[in-house]
């Protein structure tokens, strides 16, 4: 049984490995999800990937649920379940053991250094996520303007992000984004 012929196994392996490299959270792994799901395995088209990201942002719950959507489109309910657990459980168990280890010892210096070292990496990864997604979605001038507008509003105001998603949806429905 290899992961090319069995989609469930492929999902489990892909996301279990990916989660271990998702520094800064699920949003940091989006370029890798796109690379694997669209370019390597052809599970989704470019456009479907952008749609899946939009749906995940419209839903309540943690960001990581984008993998539930990818899993569902690959292998239905079983795919959704396997992808979600594969992305969540390995690192949750790792966090469990690390927190127990740290609670029992005074390794206060190393976590601080590692954390400081990982901050620029996770920001770089999230920036890459924005860039990869923008390349798939922002194909017209109007689309770029909506992205830029949301970025500026979210940076300068404390407006609830839900309003900006809603505004994007309305503009899209009105056919203004193309």
């Amino acid at each position: 049984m290899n992961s090319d012929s069995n989609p469930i196994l492929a999902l489990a392996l892909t996301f279990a490995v990916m989660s271990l490299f998702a520094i800064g959270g699920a949003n940091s792994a989006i370029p890798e999800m796109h690379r694997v799901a669209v370019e390597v395995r052809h599970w989704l088209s470019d456009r479907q990937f952008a749609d899946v990201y939009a749906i995940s942002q419209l839903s309540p719950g943690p960001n990581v649920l984008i993998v539930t959507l990818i899993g569902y489109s690959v292998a239905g309910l079983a795919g959704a379940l396997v992808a979600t657990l594969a992305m969540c459980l390995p690192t949750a168990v790792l966090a469990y053991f690390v927190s127990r280890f740290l609670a029992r010892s005074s390794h206060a210096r190393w976590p601080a250094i590692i954390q400081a070292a990982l901050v620029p990496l996770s920001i770089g990864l999230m920036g890459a996520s924005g860039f990869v997604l923008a390349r798939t979605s922002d194909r017209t001038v109007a689309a770029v303007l909506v992205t830029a507008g949301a970025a500026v509003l979210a940076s300068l105001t404390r407006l609830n992000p839900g309003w900006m998603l809603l505004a994007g949806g309305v503009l899209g429905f009105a056919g203004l984004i193309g």
Partner: protein
Amino acid sequence: MLPDSPPAAVPVPDLSKSPPPSLIALFVAFAKMSLAGFGGVLVWARRGIVDQHRWMTAEEFNETFALCHFLPGPNIVNLTFVFGSRFRGLLGGIAAFAGLVGPPAVIVTVLAALYQRYGEIEALRRILAGVSCAAIGLLLATVFRMMMPLIKRRDVVGLVVLLMVFVAIGVLRLPLPSVLLVAIPLSIAITFAMRRGEA
């Protein structure tokens, strides 16, 4: 559902708070926080755990979050698991995790089924395209907000590392594991060397 920047780590837990929650209380509390979590579960998690239930002090919450932020994987999921297990062992971790992920996963799965069925409808396509554009803007705003401390500190080394990762992953589309296997040791070595230089 946007990530927040990591707070500073604060040590020394304090255990003089509410009695530890039951498994069901953990499941229900995390399900509520998660379902309220449009625009960031973390905000709701902090409100629920620290303000509402008083299961942790603000310092303990920050410390736990800092730990989960430097570990890989979905931060809030890690936090939930660690948090639940602190009170009720592994079962507590599983109960909190099931609460956080279960109900929204059901919602997302229903949306996925609807999308698979109706995703080709032109109006829905246009709406999702618009939402996607706005959501990308929100993500970029988070990136800018997280970059500000580096820019204010004139942390040139940090910004160069950031840019290298951005180019390798975003532009060159190199595989994540190979990029990180180079970038993590490099960044830790630089940070360590610079801290020693300052001391």
